[in-house]
């Protein structure tokens, strides 16, 4: 297996990765000003979707990129978080903070159970088992007729004390605050002793075991953390959509999260957010592009996206962050030559 991620690259470029993450997050904070002057409120909606998917992808990246566990079922946690909002409202609990706490507990518990069962295995088994459990939850919600079943349930935006989420800008900055919090938390987690051990487990599990640590404990912890982050994204997703259906946890969404991470850069802090920007922009641009070439087929943009994905896998190494790295390394090498 060729290495997708190298430990050395991260320590050298860790600083730049951090900087890029905060540049992106700062960009999202300033973005509403641009949309205000451009008079394009639709762009805010797109930015919110990017932040939500990026947040979920950042959560998954802890498991996927840093821990090396290929989980193909994280959409289920987004769905659980979203249904926490829907079902609590169904029973009359409208307080958003309560939804957040509930979602944290539910997703943490689900992550613990699924993680415990799935982490008994590795490799292909792990991928298939996480996918299968996600499908189990999907079909569970499809068959729960009292909560809308297949059609889903519409809901009101939750009450967060003074923050009225029906004001579009307040919703935007609520999502932004949570994104910044997740980014900050992940930065500390990744730099901590825990994060370093997690990466060590990825590169050589038996060596970590020989040092007297229990790898399973670290893997489980990271799995639970990432499940909780995805649940958080799910709660906000439900509030943003004002609607939740099993579609939110369809297995293709798990695939999308994985695409976003690989597109951006595996095992980097900024990668998932960068990937989400590119992925959702492609989703907007490809239909327009196709519409210009072949107007009848504008809706069938997936016919371009599928092969594009295969190309990224076959020819792209390390995602967009890797591309940036190579470009900067090339420039540094040129500078060296000029200096000599």
């Amino acid at each position, binding site marked *: 297996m060729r290495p997708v991620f190298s430990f050395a690259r991260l320590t050298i470029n860790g600083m730049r990765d951090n900087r890029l993450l905060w540049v992106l997050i700062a960009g999202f904070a300033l973005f509403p000003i641009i949309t205000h002057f451009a008079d394009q409120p639709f762009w805010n909606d797109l930015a919110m979707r990017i932040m939500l998917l990026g947040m979920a992808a950042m959560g998954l990246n802890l498991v996927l990129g840093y821990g090396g566990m290929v989980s193909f079922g994280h959409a289920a946690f987004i769905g659980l978080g979203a249904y926490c909002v829907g079902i609590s409202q169904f029973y009359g609990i409208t307080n958003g903070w309560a939804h957040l706490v509930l979602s944290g507990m539910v997703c943490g518990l689900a992550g613990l159970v699924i993680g415990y069962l799935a982490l008994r295995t590795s490799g292909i088994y792990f991928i298939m088992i996480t996918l299968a459990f996600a499908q189990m939850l999907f079909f569970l919600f499809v068959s729960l007729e009292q909560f809308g079943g297949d059609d889903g349930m519409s809901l009101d935006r939750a009450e967060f004390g003074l923050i009225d989420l029906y004001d579009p800008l307040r919703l935007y900055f609520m999502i932004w605050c949570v994104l910044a919090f997740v980014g900050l938390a992940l930065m500390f987690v990744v730099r901590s002793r825990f994060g370093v051990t997690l990466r060590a487990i990825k590169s050589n599990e038996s060596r970590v075991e020989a040092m007297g640590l229990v790898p399973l404990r670290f893997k489980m912890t990271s799995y639970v953390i990432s499940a909780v982050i995805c649940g958080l994204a799910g709660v906000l997703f439900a509030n943003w959509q004002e609607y939740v259906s099993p579609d939110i946890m369809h297995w293709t969404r798990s695939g999308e999260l994985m695409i976003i991470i690989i597109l951006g850069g595996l095992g980097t802090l900024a990668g998932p957010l960068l990937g989400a920007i590119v992925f959702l922009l492609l989703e907007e641009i490809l239909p327009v592009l196709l519409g210009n070439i072949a107007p009848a087929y504008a809706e069938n943009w997936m016919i371009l996206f*599928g092969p594009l994905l295969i190309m990224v896998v076959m020819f792209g190494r390390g995602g967009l962050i890797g591309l940036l790295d190579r470009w900067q390394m090339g420039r540094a090498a040129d500078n060296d030559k000029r200096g000599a």
Partner: protein
Amino acid sequence: MTLTLILEQTFNGLQAGVTLFLVAAGLTLILGIMDFVFLAHGAQVMIGAYAAAAITAASGNFYLGLLLAIPLTFASGYLLEFLIIRHLYGRDHMEQVLATFGLILFFNEAIRIGFGPAALFSDLPPSLTGFVQILPDTPYPAYRLGVILVGLACALGIHLFVSKTRVGAMVRAGANNPEMTAALGINIKILFRLIFAVGACLAGVAGMMLGPLTAVQPGMGEPLLILSLVVIIIGGIGSVRGAFIAAIIVGLVDTLGRVFLPAMLRLVVDQATADGAGPALASMLVYILMAVVLIFRPTGLFPAKG
């Protein structure tokens, strides 16, 4: 009356089971021997169903549709392996997931462009629309019975092929230890391509037979793909025998669970709770079974690698 219902549903479960087996048989070898995460196997089911439906519609002959679709699915599997898959062996599992996910998107969209987003319905020839008396006073659709028989015949054929022939011995050796098999001078590249094509062909047959029973539409193979992954986890990766037994178990549990679980719950709890929880529990039954197998046998019931 109840006995008739049980018998009828058992046959339906068997029919679902053999169909699942046809999908899982090739996939378990692809996962086990080539260590390749192939998510686009569901697309092969779809290709088979569309090929058969299109040829049937064009020629007006159902059997001709089936007969011509078989080599077509074989060719599609062969070409897919040659063009794309063989470049991805030995890559990171995640990259394989991504590439085959891209393939799914491509195939679904290509079918949508070629045949439209609506479902195709193909009619059965009059000779297959009748009923067969499986027991006195217990009629069962002839076509479904035919599906069971074809599935069982395929299973027997695969079993004889894998356990009695020289190529079958190579396949078994490959499942057990691919490096050693290659070191013994067996052309593993050709072997891989053949397994891939035959697997695609079997999945295609499953799709062709499902065509008249369900709607032929883009993405129709995906639910089947995920259930067949459950089958493979239960049966053990790389084991055709395990896939067969697990497929029958999963088919029966799923079908019978959906029909009888709500009624059984009603005996234990009150009606309202049973009606609410019954369908939910029934849809999770197969996955609960998988979790139980995982707890006691993490490598499945019949692990191929010793």
